[in-house]
């Protein structure tokens, strides 16, 4: 197949420029790593604490929070507060020096608390309050018993301990619709799938510069003087870009799966998304390559377009937290459909069948973009 020869040469030229190795292979993984590290590996928010040292109650509170949150201890409250102010940690709890003693004395210890004034701050505040209540519950009960029944505090504590083993638990069972784990805040943030979507499209789109170079060099014209038809030439170029984009997508899938244990859901489904979405990127590159004349400008505009579409389509911040009008706009981008397809696979445990509509939309994007690109390119090169 002649188109394969064109695709092969496109790849050969791409990787002859060593810097492309960085942008295709090193850069996306570095970004996943940075974002992963920033959000504590498990993408959990971090709560800063001070004054925990040696205090049993404060220690209990921290242990309870440790299950769902990252905990970072600060030496003094000023540093902790500054960390929240700068956004380095999501919240800070400042325990007083004598928390346990104060609680046992039946007084009302104040625990200093600040969060980021954003939406995740609300969730952390609620969680901190319930951890605090759970930790302090037995002490509070003991104080109440001692006061109402006229027994000593030590005695009351023993009685509460005894009652605790006899009394049945009241639990909270959490589940979500769909079979995903109960949502931890992690999925809030940039996941590996959104990075994959961002980069597969970016890699595809910056190929427009290579196409323009081919035209400037006169190579495209020469190709058309051979037995290859204009359609074959364009398909070959698309195939080359598609090949890189898909290869990069699979590479990100495998590396994040092995190195960061990212859950991708149904592997066939994930592969199908990469295939369809990569084709959208490659097709868009052909359109850019046909429309623009200056390869450097096309390269710059491609990067901006790829980042902009990624932002709009929920590859930087999930669309779920967009305003409703922005959510509607997001649906115009192919990124939205790729991201939503991954969400279907990972969060809702879907299969290939469940993402067929998404794949269909992506295929439609490719067809439309390619048709316009071919029409335009044929005009440009046989002018």
């Amino acid at each position, binding site marked *: 197949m002649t188109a394969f020869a064109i695709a092969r040469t496109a790849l050969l030229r791409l990787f002859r420029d*060593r*810097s492309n190795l*960085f942008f295709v292979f090193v850069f996306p993984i570095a970004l996943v*790593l940075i974002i992963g*590290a*920033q959000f*504590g590996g498990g993408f959990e928010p971090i709560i800063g604490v001070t004054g925990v040292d040696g205090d049993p109650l404060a220690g209990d509170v921290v242990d309870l929070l440790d299950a769902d949150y990252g905990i970072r201890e600060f030496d003094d409250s000023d540093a902790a507060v500054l960390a*929240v*102010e*700068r956004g*380095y940690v999501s919240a800070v709890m400042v325990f007083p020096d004598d928390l346990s003693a104060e609680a046992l004395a039946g007084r*009302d*210890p104040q*625990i*200093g*608390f600040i969060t*980021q*004034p*954003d*939406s*995740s*701050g*609300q969730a952390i*505040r609620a*969680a901190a309050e*319930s951890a605090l209540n*759970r930790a*302090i*519950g*037995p*002490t*509070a009960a003991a104080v109440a*018993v001692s006061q*109402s*029944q006229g027994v000593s505090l030590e005695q009351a504590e023993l009685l*509460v301990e005894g*009652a*605790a083993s*006899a*009394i*049945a*638990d*009241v*639990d*909270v*069972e*959490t*589940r*979500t*619709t769909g079979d995903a784990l*109960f949502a931890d*805040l992690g999925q809030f943030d940039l996941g590996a799938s959104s990075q994959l979507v961002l980069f597969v499209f970016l890699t595809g789109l910056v190929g427009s510069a290579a196409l323009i170079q081919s035209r400037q060099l006169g190579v495209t014209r020469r190709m058309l003087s051979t037995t290859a038809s204009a359609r074959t030439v364009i398909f070959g170029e698309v195939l080359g870009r598609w090949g890189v984009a898909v290869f990069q997508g699979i590479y990100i899938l495998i590396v994040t799966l092995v190195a960061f244990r990212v859950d991708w859901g149904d592997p066939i489904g994930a592969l199908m998304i990469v295939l369809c979405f990569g084709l959208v990127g490659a097709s868009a590159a052909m359109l850019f390559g046909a429309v623009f004349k*200056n390869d450097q400008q096309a390269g710059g505009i491609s*990067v*901006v377009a790829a980042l*902009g579409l990624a932002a709009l389509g929920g590859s*930087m911040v999930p669309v779920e*937290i*967009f*305003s409703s009008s922005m959510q509607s706009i997001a649906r115009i981008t192919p990124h939205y459909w790729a991201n939503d397809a991954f969400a279907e696979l990972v969060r809702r445990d879907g299969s290939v069948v469940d993402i067929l509509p998404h794949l269909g939309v992506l295929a439609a994007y490719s067809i439309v973009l390619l048709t316009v690109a071919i029409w335009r390119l044929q005009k440009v090169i046989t002018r």
Partner: protein
Amino acid sequence: MRQMFLIAGKDLRLRLRDRSVFIIGLAAPALLALIFTFAFGDALDLSGGGFSATYGFVDLDGGDAGAALADVLEGLDSSDQFEVTDFPSASAAEAAIEDDEISAAFVVPAGFSELVGVQDTAIEVIGNVDAPTGSAIAAAIAEAYAVNVERVSLTVGASVAAGASPDSIPALVQAASTQPPLTHLGDLNTVVRQMDGPTYAMAGMAVFFLFFTVQFGVAGLLEERRFGTWDRLMSAGVSKGTVIAAKAFVSFVLGIVSMAVLMLGAAVGLGANWGDPLAVSALVVMGVLAATAVMSVVAALAKTVEGAGNVQSIIAVTLGLLGGTFVPVAGGEGILAKLSLLTPHAWFMRGLNDLAGGGSISLVVPSLLAIGAFALAATLVALWAFTREVAA
């Protein structure tokens, strides 16, 4: 000096004639910052006003315990951020979740009031996978309620063990239920040392693209060589230092102009509040110097325009990413956070963040020193590279 300005003037004219500098220096950062602002405006809104959740409540118990939870939720309902709706059955609530009408539902099982303390029992929270924050808050609210119920049971149980008469149990329950919590979270006073969403986006994009914009200046060195005009300049008695200074000056001017236009534009168009003008100007000047210096190093070491462009892109992207121009990085504990503080970007962003809470230039002295140190180090390396080349 005159020669330097002549060369710089020629280069500036050439750059302005080529539209690329406008795309990279102005259009790209402005466009991306705008998109970020409009796409994530609500999410990045640090006032917290954007968040709201609607919960479902299913009381299959009908007893006191269920009513107590209903009271808690009633309290939520009266706030602006939460709304609570009753549902007749768990399946009805689930259907509402599927339709994304509610973020989560609380289900009090039948017989809950009777079973409390007697037998292990549980309140169920059904979360919406697509509303992780709302679901997490619902879980925490239920947890706080369960803890409270357990505490009441403990108090009553221990009181009975201490010899309280069975007749007094209802009163004990009443007293324990209404007992105020022994501790509570008190809000600390704080200033926000973070730019708001649009401001952060613009600052991040402006400094990210700054490192690309300054390339247009120092890359001119390699261009002179390619065109063969370098030898002509040398033969005209222009010193090498003059040419280098001219190119660096072009970088500096392009950098300052792009930063100024972007930041002033954001102030006017997006309502960005940058803080003390003197301190902000100092940060910008220092940042542009650092960018010019680091790109000069590459220009001094590279052999071709393309080679320099590729290396400069890699450096600009790596520093920008590590420096937190897209996502903040410096706040973590790991090695990346430490690496982040080696980038001028991180200090530039920190300086602007600090200024967001008010304050004057004294507040950003650490940032200025850090960026300055980076600029100085890069300048020294660049000078070494340029002199080394003369010897070679």
